[in-house]
């Protein structure tokens, strides 16, 4: 259990860590770590390995928006059916059912603002069951997934201290 947690924490920080390095850091052995990672993959705990991109520095043009979606849930199907209709669109990055003033939070990524507007007007707002949308464009990202994206602290330790 402890090892599982440690593996997940370490890989979440740096998925390029080798099983050997993880084994050394956790005081375990390489085979055990390898097997545990495989089990986590098989069971769908680890969904994949990816990189984190600072979209503001990336050469790929990206605009992102959060869309608050109000829906009228359908008898027997609840929110799941409408959520499915939304998350199937490839430009949709995430869909969450929320408590509060609206129902679904949809995060969307596209090359331009126009593309996002078009998506909202032509694909999202017209879906049966969607009663209203509010599109909030992301203007600047300060921190994402635990990583600070703006110029922040440059800790300056001396090279050698007692």
């Amino acid at each position, binding site marked *: 259990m402890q090892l599982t947690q440690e593996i997940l924490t370490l890989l979440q920080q740096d998925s390029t860590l080798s099983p050997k390095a993880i084994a050394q850091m956790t005081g375990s052995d390489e085979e055990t770590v390898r097997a545990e990672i495989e089990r986590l993959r098989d069971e769908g705990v680890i969904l994949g390995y990816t990189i984190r991109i600072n979209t503001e520095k990336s050469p790929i043009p990206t605009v992102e928006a959060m869309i608050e979606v109000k829906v009228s849930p359908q008898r027997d199907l609840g929110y799941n059916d409408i959520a499915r209709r939304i998350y199937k669109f490839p430009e949709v990055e995430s869909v969450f059912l929320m408590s509060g003033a609206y129902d679904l939070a949809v995060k969307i990524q596209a090359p331009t603002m126009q593309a996002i507007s078009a998506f909202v007007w032509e694909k999202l707002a017209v879906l049966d069951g969607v009663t209203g949308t509010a599109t909030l464009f992301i203007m600047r990202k300060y921190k994402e997934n635990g990583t600070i994206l703006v110029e922040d602290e440059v800790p300056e330790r001396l090279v*050698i*201290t007692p």
Partner: protein
Amino acid sequence: MNYDKVLASPVVSIPPSGIRRFFDVASTMQGVISLGVGEPDFVTPWNIREASIHSIEHGRTHYTSNHGMPELRELICEYLSRRYGVRYDLSSCLVTVGASEALDLAFRALLNPGDEVLIPAPSYVSYAPCVTLAHGIPVAVPTYEEDAYALRADVLESFLNERTKAVILPYPNNPTGGIMTRPQIDAVTRVLSGRDVVMIADEIYSELTYGGTHESFAKGMEDRTILINGFSKAFAMTGWRLGYACGPKPLIDMMVKIHQYTMLCAPVMAQTAGIEALKDALSSDFAQVRAMRNAYNRRRLLIYEGFKDMGLPVFEPRGAFYIFPSIRETGMTSEQFCERLLKEGRVATVPGNAFGDAGEGHIRCSYAASTDNIMESLRRIRVFLNHLN
């Protein structure tokens, strides 16, 4: 003017710092990875910084009581009692400008010219010079790798004489990473019992032990121990300069006497930060301290396995954030080794002899560095060693 004539001889007698010399070389070089840093690589946790900023904004910019803010001293006493079973009350607790000032005060309060202070070796670079500056005589008591660098009671006993005024107990140890277990501590205190020898326990790394909670020399020995600790290592607060000393009131009173004339008080901003650090730790089961300790522990294991893989004889460190491999079999002195490793391998480490003659044949590597830097420096050291053969 003849400057040699005006300078005080204890100051002149202190040799230049070996660490300083290395620092001067290393800091001019490009592309060096440093394992030479004796401080956390973490920045002070944000809640602590924020509390201090808030207090500055609200005008808390004045002197505090000489002893330190009562709220902080209360928290320190509660912390020591809850965490280590050590019992001092408010009047026996003095807040200082780092553990460094507390050490200096202890020596100055205790030493008459010619008094001896026993110092386990190798250990932290400041003890011997500070004893000399207080007109005392530092005496190195060797510790050995086969004892996991713990201080042996029989060895200590052989150094005790009528001039012995105090023993420094620097555990967890910088530079070896050695710690002392309860039975080892008991053996040492038994040797000292019945003698007028003060134990000066520098437990600045007390939060950084791996595989068990730190055992304090002061526990049950409050009446003969000056316990020194601080915020630098546990809370990543080196630059704030905040530490403390707890001890028998007659000794602390004399330390306060020096402190009130030379320092007045520790910086109020730092004291406010210290209050937040301890409050948060005590109410969160030390969550942030634990997270940092866990990170150090991973790096400790990584670097220990790395040196073992290279075939360098190395003792598994149990505390602080240093590892102290032996480089004897390269045939070089520790200074030669560190100098060449720096110039040819681009890794900065500290030669063991900087911590006294007992450290010769070793290098001190700090694993308060990112895992990437640790892995890369291990790779560089391996290449360097292969080139030697």
